[in-house]
């Protein structure tokens, strides 16, 4: 029998926590969840089987990574981390004056214990939700904390870049905690990338978004983890009354990835838009489970996912819309579409609507299709070669999601990433 995680890692976990000068209460979060983890199971997602990926078997999480350079972000507010170490951080002084906090997660644990104790894996993604969230809580080794106080509107976007180091053997367990208090607003853009490919590593990333009443968070993510990284990527949010969370996620990883996204619409009148664009290539498997639950009255939850599958890869979209009893006047809509470019590709789009209240509106659309021959013939009849014609058709297919993303910069970067990933996949 394999030794339990507890037997294997307890000493390392305590030592790692002490190295980081973590307070005892935070060490306890790690050790408590290490004890719980063996009784928890892997999260289950419809039609996504990832058991063989062994995401529940961590390797090394406490090795000191070599922080390698990365081109600085273009925005006025940014944080850049490599292997969990902060390389660069800038926050406009006027924002700091207003009480906005942008810092690495370890500093946050030491400097803002009340906020972290209140929000870290307690309200959105709970540490004992499942085995992977528990492992995350135990072995979290990097990440950031972004805090927007009441009534503060952040005009310029805040960007976070996380570089994973695959030059060494080290799990990449990053935590993103975004708290937007009542009547605040922020646009946050994050980018996960991998540097090097000499080692195969696991990533267990959890992002939590907490919005107060009337708060509005625009959350954009461009995920580009490499083929040598196997990942669990969870991004979830909760809403206060009349709050809003807009997700725009470009799922452009090259390895096997589970994406667990969504919002719990707790406050009355709150609203979420979850937009996901995914491209899978090579032999990779990407499974995305986007779930919105309407708890509050008159809440609106919309899911829009479009994906393209090339070569021998697999892409599964689950869209889960759940309206609980009592969430009167709520709306749950979803659309998941998958385009397959190769005979060897596998794709699935599963709409799941769970409606426990009568006075609601709900709808879904899902499709799995191939590139339209008439469109290809038409484009090629104008002299455009097959590969370019394919890319045009695909871009058209993905554009219905991309055009919905409000930030021009995100749209442009996503379009570039799509082009690059498609060209790689077509070779």
């Amino acid at each position, binding site marked *: 029998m394999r030794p339990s995680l507890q037997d294997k890692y307890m000493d390392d976990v305590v030592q790692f926590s002490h190295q980081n000068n973590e307070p005892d209460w935070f060490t306890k979060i790690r050790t408590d969840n290490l004890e719980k983890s063996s009784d928890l199971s892997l999260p289950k997602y419809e039609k996504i089987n990832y058991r063989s990926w062994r995401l529940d078997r961590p390797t090394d999480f406490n090795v000191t990574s070599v922080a390698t350079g990365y081109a600085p972000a273009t925005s006025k507010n940014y944080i850049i981390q490599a292997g969990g170490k902060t390389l660069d951080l800038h926050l406009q002084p006027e924002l700091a004056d207003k009480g906005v906090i942008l810092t690495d997660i370890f500093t946050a644990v030491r400097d803002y214990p009340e906020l972290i104790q209140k929000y870290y894996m307690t309200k959105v993604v709970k540490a004992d939700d499942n085995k992977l969230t528990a492992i995350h809580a135990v072995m979290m080794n990097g990440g950031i904390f972004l805090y927007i106080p009441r009534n503060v509107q952040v005009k310029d976007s805040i960007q976070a870049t996380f570089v994973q180091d695959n030059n060494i053997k080290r799990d990449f367990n990053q935590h993103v905690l975004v708290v937007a208090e009542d009547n605040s607003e922020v646009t946050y853009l994050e980018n996960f990338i991998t540097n090097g490919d000499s080692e195969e590593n696991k990533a267990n990333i959890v992002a939590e978004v907490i919005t107060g009443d009337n708060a509005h968070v625009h959350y954009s993510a461009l995920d580009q983890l490499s083929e040598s990284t196997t990942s669990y990527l969870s991004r979830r949010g909760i809403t206060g009354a009349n709050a809003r969370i807009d997700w725009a996620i470009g799922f452009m990883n090259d390895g096997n990835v589970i994406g667990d996204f969504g919002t719990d619409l707790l406050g009355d009148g709150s609203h979420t838009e979850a937009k996901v664009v995914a491209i899978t290539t090579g032999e990779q498997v990407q499974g995305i489970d986007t779930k919105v639950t309407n708890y509050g009255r008159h809440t609106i939850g919309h899911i829009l996912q479009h994906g393209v599958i090339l070569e021998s890869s697999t892409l599964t979209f689950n869209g889960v819309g759940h309206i609980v009893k009592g969430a009167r006047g709520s709306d749950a809509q979803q659309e998941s579409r998958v385009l397959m470019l190769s005979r060897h590709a596998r794709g699935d789009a599963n709409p799941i609507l769970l409606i426990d209240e009568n006075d609601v509106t709900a709808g879904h659309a899902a499709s799995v299709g191939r590139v339209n021959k008439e469109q290809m013939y038409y484009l090629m*009849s104008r*002299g455009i070669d097959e590969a370019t014609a394919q890319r045009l*058709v695909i871009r*058209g297919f993905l554009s*219905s999601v991309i055009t919905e993303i409000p930030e021009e910069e995100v749209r442009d970067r996503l379009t570039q990433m799509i082009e690059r990933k498609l060209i790689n996949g077509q070779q």
Partner: protein
Amino acid sequence: MSTLEVKDLHVSVTDEENGKGQEILKGVNLKMSTGEIHAIMGPNGTGKSTLSAAIMGNSAYKVTQGDVLLDGKSILDMPVDERARAGLFLAMQYPAEIPGVTNIEFMRAAINARRDPDDQIPVRKFIKMLDEKQDILDMTDEMSGRYLNEGFSGGEKKRNEILQLLMIQPKFAILDEIDSGLDIDALKVVSRGVNSMRGDNFGSLIITHYQRLLNYIVPDQVHIMMDGRIVKSGGPDLAKKLEDEGYAGIRDDLNLDVKLTDEI
């Protein structure tokens, strides 16, 4: 001068229901040079559109015999895009709609496909050219900014096909029923566009049911097609004769044993 030659062309399509091949073209012969406009007229279901699709290389149409030659070289082994770059253009009866791709970026991609990757058309030059061609066709910038054919009316689609023709400037353009669904004003505009291309370096094969289009684009030669073959060729007068006598009259003149689809 360039030439386009169709030699004893036999073409089949596969019936989707029973999987059997059905011969549509039964030996078409046609030769044209740049500087000439040829019209092909014929009743419904006689293979006119099949001829245009087979010349362009639509994979749904299978050439079982014969050849298509551009400047003396067979193009049958070339895929559609290569034929287009070699100088062929097909204005389609039912152009595809492509959401998410603007007309303007599509036309730039089409022009750039003919140029060296290191020598792509400068944006200014492209826009200037586009403005000129849009003027000929009474088109606005608004249409070029829209997604390719998406939500275009029948007339707008035809105009857009001709705009592409003017932008791409092929050696030979096949116009497949470009007049269908056009009112008289739109017909004049489309004809003006095609006529603006006339010259020593351009040839066109115009496929139509009606003589009316040929009042505006006067052909050098008219061919009448029935039952998968060209049964009679002549000058512009032939189209007028056809208008007077109908296809049945021509058939009876020639003593052909052909059933016309729409014959009562």
